[in-house]
């Protein structure tokens, strides 16, 4: 059998072997298929169109509207909004809108308590999971489930749990009249508890992966040099986790700032405006007051600030991660 190959090739030198091929299919699409860059452009087209049409264009429209008093009620088409042009009054109003600033303050309060709590709980849990132990995979899956549940359903769960006649009061021996969701101070606390319950697993996940990202050989070398597991954690694992910690905190803070589902389902921002966060305030302004131009202005400012924080935080982290 082997000689078929050798005789076939021996007399047919490399070049003549070429003409045995089928003629190339000429045509626009087969040309595109052959040229990397043109194929790349066609691949990118759908995304660019979507981004252009649904992200860039709307942002431009929002900027344009934010300089007018336009609302959907006045029966004027949006592109004629320049008739009510107001040269930045919306932005001026934004600066002095006490309702907005108190909403921002309440959102920051949630962040200041929820994010550190989630970080510390997540770090503790991650440290427990660094070494292998029987049942690790099972417990790992159980502890991850909260973050996979639909936030609105988590809101419902804690809505039920924090009812006067709910299990929480019962477990801690509090009277049924002890109110959570309708109490001025405890409403905010219950939202923080719900948020922590749902998102601590995310911190646990990211921090654990940071701990496990330490090359196993280096950890082993540290042990062989006589380091105890606590010494190795403090001197080898923790210092290498700076980028991971940065990612975790940035991600969680930005997401937390946008909190809407939990407090909308649990307390609808109540009692009064005690748990009204920025998102809720914007939602109310949009649907109750139909003050769209003003909401557009606030939206742009928030978008700019949030993206800046997120981009710089992640850039810092991935640069460090590569270092």
């Amino acid at each position, binding site marked *: 059998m*082997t000689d078929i*190959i050798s005789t076939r*090739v021996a007399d047919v030198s*490399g*070049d003549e072997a070429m003409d045995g091929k089928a003629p190339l299919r000429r045509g626009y699409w087969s040309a595109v298929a052959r040229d990397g860059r043109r194929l790349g452009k066609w691949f990118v087209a759908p995304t660019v169109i979507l981004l252009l049409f649904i992200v860039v264009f709307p942002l431009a429209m929002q900027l344009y509207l934010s300089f007018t008093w336009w609302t959907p009620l006045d029966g004027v088409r949006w592109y004629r909004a320049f008739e009510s042009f107001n040269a930045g009054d919306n932005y001026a109003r934004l600066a002095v809108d006490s309702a907005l600033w108190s909403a921002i303050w309440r959102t920051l309060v949630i962040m200041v308590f929820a994010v550190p709590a989630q970080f510390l709980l997540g770090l503790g849990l991650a440290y427990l999971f660094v070494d292998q132990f029987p049942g690790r995979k099972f417990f790992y899956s159980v502890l991850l489930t909260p973050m996979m549940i639909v936030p609105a359903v988590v809101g419902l769960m804690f809505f039920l749990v924090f009812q006067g006649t709910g299990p929480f009061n019962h477990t801690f021996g509090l009277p049924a009249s002890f109110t959570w969701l309708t109490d001025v101070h405890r409403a905010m606390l219950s939202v923080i508890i719900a948020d922590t319950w749902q998102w601590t697993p995310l911190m646990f996940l990211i921090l654990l992966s940071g701990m496990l990202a330490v090359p196993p050989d280096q950890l082993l070398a540290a042990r062989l040099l006589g380091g105890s597991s606590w010494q190795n954690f403090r001197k080898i694992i923790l210092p290498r986790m700076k980028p991971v910690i940065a990612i975790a905190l940035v991600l969680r803070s930005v997401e937390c700032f946008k909190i809407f589902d939990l407090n909308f389902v649990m307390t609808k921002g109540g009692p009064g405006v005690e748990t009204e966060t920025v998102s809720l305030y914007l939602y109310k302004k949009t649907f109750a007051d139909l003050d769209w131009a003003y909401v557009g202005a606030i939206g742009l400012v928030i978008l700019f600030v949030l993206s800046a924080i997120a981009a710089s935080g992640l850039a810092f982290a991935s640069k460090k991660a590569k270092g």
Partner: protein
Amino acid sequence: MHAIEIKGAQKSFPGFTLGPLDLAVRRGEVFGIFGPPSAGKTSVLRLILGLLPQDKGAVLVGGADAASMEASERDMSMVFQNLALFPHMSGRENIVFPLVERNVPEDEIAVRLDAVSEVLHVSHILHKKPAQMSGGERQRIALGRALVVDSRAILLDEPISALDARLREEMRVELKRLQRTKNQTFVYVSHDEEEVMAISDRVAVMIDGQIAQIGEPDEIYNRPGTLGVAKVVGSPPMNLFEGRFSSDGRYFECEDFAVPYPLVREALKGKVATVGIRPEDIREDDAAASHEIALRSIEPLGGYTIVNAVLGHRLVKIRASGRVTSVDRYGRRVTFDPRHLHVFDGEGSRCDG
């Protein structure tokens, strides 16, 4: 006409420039490319294949300029260092992939597949996926994929470096036999000197993106054209002594030598130079022009022995044929074999004419 030619090709990367390169691979020849890791060897293969467009110069394939030819149209095949087998395809699908892509008729595919799998003894693993194969088996499938099609040349990028020492030696002999029986053109890249020198008809030594020398393996070993080549060719490496020529050009002075070393031929008077001597060209001998050495350790390797010593204050390696069982069983004075003395001038190029 050459199978492949590169004329003044150059490609600059951030912090590294490849070329300008000039080389020609004759049809039916094994053209080796040897050099330390990251000398740009793989990039040369990618230039030839058209996977890496060059900034300047030209790559000729079968005599014609290949600029207009896509990688798929240059009709060459390659065995990659990490073998690059298609993980989601079986051994058979991997091997016949080039034929299927060139819509070769079904019956001819079957014939070629049988021939190749018999030559490479892979018929029993054609159904397996690469993940289920051993290193040696994967390596033979990658070879099968390159040999199954009549390509102008087969490019091999360190194809057997991942294998065990023993398997490597067998595969080397096998590759040479395959190449010989099919009169195939090979371009063989490796950083393992013994491998390249054993399998290649001609070798190009590449250092830091430049071709330092092209020649027959024996010629490159015995007459390295530059200091750079001398340093990378030969294991254990050549012993080098920096110094200068005497004013009358007939002696070589160096602080490691107690007495200036007489040269056979006239040399550049008073110039800075480097003298090199290979470990196998140093002999135990207390004649007049011998040098005093202090022994440090010996490496008994069965067929020969490596003696580590200090000459002046430079570590020197000597290859003693036969047995030296302990440090004190080796002489205190050695001489260099004048016929195999290598002399390089200040810029590192060979200057004994």
